[in-house]
């Protein structure tokens, strides 16, 4: 029997916060064989990153580690500092979360990839510059980047390219284990698919062990043989990917799995993962008249050289009463600019926005009245709320601007509608005392307080945890069914569209390339771009794999 590459036995990690100890990881046992791949899933705060970082003892000083961490049979917790330094990167390396910030912006990427090589020369003696350059070129080729890019600075690379550089760095000293901490979070679907394929290929070719951490089960299922699900510092479920994904036993795993629905699965159509049951579809539902309409909308910006760049290039889109429209596209496709233009926050170069058939005025009392009808929900609820304002003040902001009568009742109604019950309990809290999902509900309540007829939500769940995601989507769907509230949801996530939307519009380079009902567009895509978006979904890969085996 071979020694496992990594064996964690009874791992406990506690952080000393003030005078008290906060347990982050409680009794975790994990084993990874050489060349094996293991996914660790969990929400933020579940302790998954702490587990991964403890392997290389990269935790802050306040962390107290109990238990055994055997890396290739050697206990990391008792290693001397010199030995630990040698083990870091040469035996095990890390692909850090957020490639955008993990690279030094003022150094060329070639130098940064070479850094571990110079610190840990493979043969024991320092490498010459030509040897280092050759190795850097080899590494860049491995991650599908042209070796000539070694002279580039991080800002000259796209997000996906930066993540490849991070992977090249991790591979530099030919480690036996790679820990990838959320390697594809914040990347577009198509780029994510490329990075995942690359990681899978490299790991298989080189017989490297891989631990991948993610909140997205479908990403893990696409790359890992086995998945461990963490919840509140403990492993609640562990098993082969297909089993965990297909037949989750623990309810938390079920929540995680349901949060990322498979497009085309009839079970998750109009059924976001929410604990409160949804009201039934109103019986007399018919296609309403267009409420909010954009006609040939065009917005352009000037870049540094003064060249005009069309962010939105002639878009026609309507949102009707009692309808949820999903606007899908990758970052930079112009969808946020389009939303801001709809709300009158950005002036269009040409084209009109019509509300209820009438053009929206550009300023003055008319615009103010329009803004009562159409409301915005922003992506990141943490920054969308003034940290110094209480929930009550944040929700009352709109009613005060529009001088609505009986402010207290309006605010309480809005809070209850956004499912913050009882309203009194939340009214006096500050944003930092709430969880991410509750904050997003406050932002939604702030919009609902004006009793709008349309809500424009810009990536409303992108910065939220998986289990909260379903609740917020459920809320939007419930509001539509109960109040007839129309919504334009902007997202990069096709699963979201499948969950709640009636119609989908796909945006690419500022233009709408495909519009239609969810079933039409997602099940029978016509445009090449829509097809590539769908093909890049990790759920798609997982399904294909299950079919193959």
């Amino acid at each position: 029997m071979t020694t496992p590459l990594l064996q964690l036995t009874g791992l406990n990690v506690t952080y000393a916060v003030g005078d008290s100890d906060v347990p982050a990881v409680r009794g975790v046992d994990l084993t990874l064989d050489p060349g094996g791949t293991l996914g660790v899933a969990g929400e933020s705060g579940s302790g998954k990153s702490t587990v991964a970082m403890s392997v290389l003892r990269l935790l802050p000083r306040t962390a107290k580690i109990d238990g055994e961490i055997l890396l290739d049979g050697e206990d990391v917790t008792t290693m001397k500092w010199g030995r630990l330094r040698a083990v870091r990167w040469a035996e095990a390396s890390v692909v850090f979360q957020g490639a955008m910030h993990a690279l030094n912006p003022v150094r060329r990427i070639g130098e940064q990839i070479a850094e571990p090589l110079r610190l840990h020369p493979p043969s024991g003696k320092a490498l010459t510059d030509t040897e280092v350059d050759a190795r850097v070129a080899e590494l860049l080729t491995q991650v599908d980047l042209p070796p000539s890019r070694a002279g580039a600075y991080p800002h000259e690379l796209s997000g996906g390219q930066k993540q490849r550089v991070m992977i090249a760095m991790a591979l530099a000293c030919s480690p036996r284990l790679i820990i990838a901490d959320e390697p594809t979070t914040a990347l577009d679907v198509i780029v994510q698919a490329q990075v995942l394929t690359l990681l899978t290929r490299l790991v298989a070719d080189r017989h490297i062990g891989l631990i991948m951490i993610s909140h997205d089960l479908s990403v893990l299922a696409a790359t890992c043989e086995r998945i461990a699900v963490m919840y509140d510092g403990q492993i609640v479920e562990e098993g082969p990917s297909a089993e965990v994904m297909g037949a989750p036993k623990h309810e938390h795993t079920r929540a995680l799995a349901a949060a990322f629905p498979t497009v085309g699965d009839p079970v998750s159509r109009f059924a976001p993962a929410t604990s409160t049951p949804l009201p039934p579809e109103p019986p007399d539902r018919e296609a309403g008249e267009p409420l909010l309409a954009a006609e040939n909308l065009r917005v352009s910006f000037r870049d540094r050289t003064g060249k005009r760049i069309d962010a939105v290039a002639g878009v026609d889109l309507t949102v009707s009463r009692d309808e949820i429209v999903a606007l899908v596209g990758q970052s930079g496709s112009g969808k946020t600019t389009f939303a801001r233009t709809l709300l009158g926050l950005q002036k269009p170069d040409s084209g009109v926005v019509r509300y209820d058939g009438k053009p929206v005025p550009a300023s003055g009392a008319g615009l103010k009245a329009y803004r009562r009808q159409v409301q915005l929900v922003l992506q990141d609820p943490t920054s969308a709320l003034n940290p110094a304002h209480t929930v009550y003040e944040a929700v009352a902001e709109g009613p005060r601007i529009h001088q609505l009568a009986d402010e207290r009742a309006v605010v309480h109604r809005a809070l209850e509608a956004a499912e913050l019950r009882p309203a009194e309990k939340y009214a006096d809290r500050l944003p930092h005392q709430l969880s991410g999902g509750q904050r997003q509900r406050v932002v939604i309540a702030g919009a609902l307080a004006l009793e709008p007829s349309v809500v424009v939500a810009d990536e409303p769940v992108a910065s939220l945890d998986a289990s909260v995601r379903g609740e917020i989507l459920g809320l939007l769907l419930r509001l539509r069914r109960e109040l007839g509230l129309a919504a334009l949801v902007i997202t990069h996530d096709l699963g979201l569209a499948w969950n709640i939307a009636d119609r989908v519009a796909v945006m690419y380079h500022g233009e709408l390339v495909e519009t239609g009902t969810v079933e039409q567009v997602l099940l029978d895509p016509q445009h090449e771009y829509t097809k590539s978006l769908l093909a890049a979904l990790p759920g798609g890969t997982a399904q294909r794999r299950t079919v193959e085996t």
Partner: protein
Amino acid sequence: MTTAETPRQIAWARRRASLRRTWREFAGQRAALTGLVLLGATVVVALLLPLISDQSGLDVTKATGAPLSPPNGDFWLGTDNFGRSVLLMTVWGTRISLLVGFSAALLSVVIGTLIGITAAHFGGWVSATLLRFTDFFLVLPSLILAIALSAVLPRGVGTIIIAIGLTAWPSTARLVRAQTLTIESRPYIERAHALGGGHLHIIGRHVLPGVMPLVLANTTLVVGNAVIADATLSFLGVGDPNSVTWGLVLENALNNGAISRGAWWNVLPPGIAIVLVVLFFTLVGRGLETVFNPRLKK
């Protein structure tokens, strides 16, 4: 209506708690606390002066001492060339210095905050115009401008206040503009726009409360500068000749030959008084800045 009162009470309780936290952080810095205590003592003494000392000693005609007598039992810090007590004059000088310092700082901070917020909030040509205007005042030698202003305006304490206030605001305006730009880039400003909030709403509800702490810290530093500017103007002879100020005491010492006759007790007391008051304000201002500016926290 007990339920209607609750949120307000809770809001006040939170405000009190945050004030307490600010105070704890401030009081944790020994230098800042020392500065505050000594500054408080100075202000109290200045306010109580008419009760605890005799103003008539400042009158040239009623002076009792011999001219330029060195420090002795009757006059602890000696006398000037009219026979007035230097100690009495120095202590009374505190009143005008503090009055001018506070008023001028208030005036300059109000102007600076107004221009800073307006420039940052409206942007475009408004910002360009206001910033060039600010730059103009920033490069103008403020002392010469102040001298010119006090020469044109009628003599008096009010003139000195206006002269200093109108020349000291550009740095505050720059600071406030930078802070406003930071706040206005936050998404909650976008949310307020989308809710239909106008300029007044955004400035009043979001920008001003966010800028205020820094402005407060800045004010205390500006007061110190204003005290120095006041002493300089009086020393140069453009101040109010009828009120006793530190600058005026120094000017008298120079004009009446006290310095050439080696009467150090006419020069050192007002000079040291200026240094001390400015030091107190700087200590308090730095302390406040450390509390309010997260980047200065270790």
